[in-house]
């Protein structure tokens, strides 16, 4: 597999090579800077094997041999740890009643988000359902923004107006509370991309429960009819709330349920497999072949939400088993340490750093203020004169003092 390296990266590898004992470097051409899989005694790039993807209506699929360099290894490890810690912090906040309402944690599914993001390029869009905290952070929000949104504070991603299920960043269309509602939306975003001749995809995520929504069938049909660059991604964690997949779906081969839309099944606990598959899928869509359906076989450790202990429909042993044998972070950690891409010390240092970042975010999330009541009537309409909002009584009818949250934030000095 060929890999294009920048001059800087090449220089780094070259100097490392010179300092250590290099085994094999091939075809450095004059015109470009190309080198094949570089295997070094002290590795800065290593290749691994992943589980093959199952294919639906495809003759070939993603590579099972993938490469990983040190920089990426540390980055992916860090990213997954941030999500794990952040979700853990959210769970604790919930137990302390500092977060109320509904809170759906992503712990266990980190490899899906981090792996997919690793393959995404500038301009790609993502839309997902309510298990969105990890995605929100990955796509540009800070840990503070995520945690403070859960506690409903001004520092929150939507300044407290959206809550757990409604967080957004550039090219990240949320965060959706209503199951399945995001599926046709994703197809629509993809249409806009195609219309604007962007070489991008819209990653449209949904769960195994949502796979039974009529909307998905409608969205899939439109996407295929018009060759839209949508990646329909089913994050199959085995349960739709408390219902196991076999009890809700006539077919649990979610990657085939696009029927006329080709699909691939991916081991969602292996971040490298996810990255590789997503890269492949993107190439497929970018080349104008239309939508693709992906199924990420993954697992969530917590219950559906914080109101669900998660043990009434599966055994604790099952959860422990997955944690022990298939955890995305420990699995990845083992790989990168064994292959010398990283050392225990480096990873410990990252852990420490991540803990610090999350702790600082927690401080703000539990101490910041809440938007004043005028926030109740911001962001209802756009570009209209200040609306008359009928209040709890006719006399509480007010004219919007601030039309947007941005105006309100400016007024209270938090712009």
């Amino acid at each position, binding site marked *: 597999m060929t890999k294009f390296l920048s001059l800087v990266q090449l220089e780094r590898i070259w100097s490392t090579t010179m300092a250590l004992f290099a085994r094999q470097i091939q075809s450095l051409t004059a015109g470009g800077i190309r080198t094949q899989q570089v295997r070094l005694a002290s590795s800065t790039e290593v290749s691994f094997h992943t589980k093959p993807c199952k294919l639906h209506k495809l003759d070939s699929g993603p590579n099972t041999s993938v490469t990983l360099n040190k920089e990426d290894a540390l980055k992916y490890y860090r990213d997954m740890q941030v999500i794990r810690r952040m979700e853990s912090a959210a769970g604790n906040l919930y137990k302390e*009643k500092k977060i*109320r*309402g*509904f809170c759906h944690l992503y712990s266990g599914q980190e490899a899906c988000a981090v792996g997919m993001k690793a393959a995404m390029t500038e301009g790609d869009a993502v839309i997902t359902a309510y298990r969105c905290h990890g995605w929100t952070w990955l796509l540009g929000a800070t840990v503070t923004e995520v945690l403070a949104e859960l506690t*409903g504070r001004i520092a929150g991603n939507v300044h*407290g*107006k*959206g*809550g757990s*299920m*409604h967080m957004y960043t550039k090219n990240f269309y949320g965060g959706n*509370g*209503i*199951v*399945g509602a995001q599926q046709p939306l994703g197809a629509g975003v993809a249409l806009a991309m195609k219309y604007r001749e962007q070489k991008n995809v819209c990653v449209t995520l949904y769960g195994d*429960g*949502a796979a*039974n*929504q*009529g*909307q998905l069938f409608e969205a899939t049909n439109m996407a295929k009819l018009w060759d839209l660059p949508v990646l329909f991604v089913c994050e199959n964690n085995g349960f*739709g*709330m*408390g*219902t196991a997949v076999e*009890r*809700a*779906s006539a077919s649990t081969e979610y990657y085939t349920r696009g029927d006329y839309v080709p699909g691939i099944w991916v081991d969602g606990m292996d971040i490298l497999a996810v990255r590789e598959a997503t890269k492949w899928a993107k190439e497929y869509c970018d080349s104008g072949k239309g939508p693709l359906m992906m199924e990420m076989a993954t697992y969530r450790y917590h219950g559906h939400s914080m109101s669900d202990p998660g043990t*009434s*429909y599966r055994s604790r042993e099952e959860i422990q088993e997955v944690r022990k044998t298939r955890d995305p972070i420990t699995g990845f950690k083992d790989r990168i340490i064994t292959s010398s891409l990283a050392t225990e010390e480096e990873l410990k240092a990252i852990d420490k750093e991540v803990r610090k970042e999350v702790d600082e975010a927690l401080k703000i999330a539990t101490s910041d*203020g*809440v*938007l*004043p*009541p005028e*926030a*109740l*009537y911001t962001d*209802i309409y756009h570009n209209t004169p200040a609306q008359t*909002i*009928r*209040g*709890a*009584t*006719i*006399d*509480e009818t007010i004219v919007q003092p601030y039309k947007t949250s941005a105006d309100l934030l400016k007024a209270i000095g938090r712009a």
Partner: protein
Amino acid sequence: MSHRAVSLLSKCSSTLTNAQIRGKAHFTFQPSTTLPAGLQGQETSKMNLMQSVNEAMRIAMETDDSAVLFGEDVAFGGVFRCSLDLQKKFGKDRVFNTPLCEQGIAGFGIGVAAAGATAIAEIQFGDYIFPAYDQLVNEAAKFRYRSGNQFDCGKLTVRTTWGAVGHGALYHSQSPEANFTHTPGLKLVVPRGPIQAKGLLLSCIRDPNPCIFFEPKILYRLASEDVPIGDYTIPLGQAETVRQGKDLTLVAWGTQVHVALEAAQLAKEKLNADVEVIDLQTIQPWDEDHVVESVQKTGRLIVTHEAPISSGFGAEIASTVQKRCFLNLESPIERVAGFDTPFPHVHEPFYLPTIHRVFDAIKKSVNY
């Protein structure tokens, strides 16, 4: 919590701490003081709303062999435990889970009912009823009409959760009843407590018209009273006066009845006004005569509901009453309802039509 929020909320109670205010419900459940007609002296058992709904369904399924219950997660007992033990008792072919597909659930329920079996379909949260809206409005409501009575889905009852719960935010707090009152052919019912819930739900299940039964989720555990243990129904289309008065008529339904009762108590203490509180119970068809008679007596009307004010069902009541009681009215009809905004996240306490807002409207009306 901001200072302003605290000061506003502290008007509700001056003795609670910050943390206590945050978790406090915006009302206190007022148990019914009288039992429905014909049930006085019957043996009762202490039950909360969840248990009384469970009871009603158990009785319905015992007395009707064709009754089936289905919805998301109902088999293990339901997310609010309303269907606890029902699958155990009646078996998997009568109590079963559906996949996650509200439109499918509603349509499927209509089919079951049209074929002659009693269908109890659960939509887990009223906020999720909108994918099912087309089926309910275009199919369920119109089946009898369009077939000239050859077919109907009267055996369908849709049960769904309803209303603010303190932390539900945008999609777990809505009161969608007004979206359906614009559709002739459906019956819509909202109970205020366990006694009414049991009787009204049994009526809905046995009523030969498609019914939507909205269960105030905040009352599932909070509302507990002595409920008659036998098989009884409360007639649909009948309102109930839960507090007698002569100075003002206050109409509400569901959770808001308890807010109204507290506001009425406050009005007695502070304004020496006797407020008559009516629980509408059935929203469609609503008991016009009962409300009109009351307003003819008092000359003043306030309608209060959680749903946003514009085109909330209070608007229909106000319009009808002004026509029928025009010369009786001593003050303009007031509506105290939710704001015309989506149901908010952290700003819920400001959004809701609280006791003090209702009291304010009472004060304005009696002083008009």
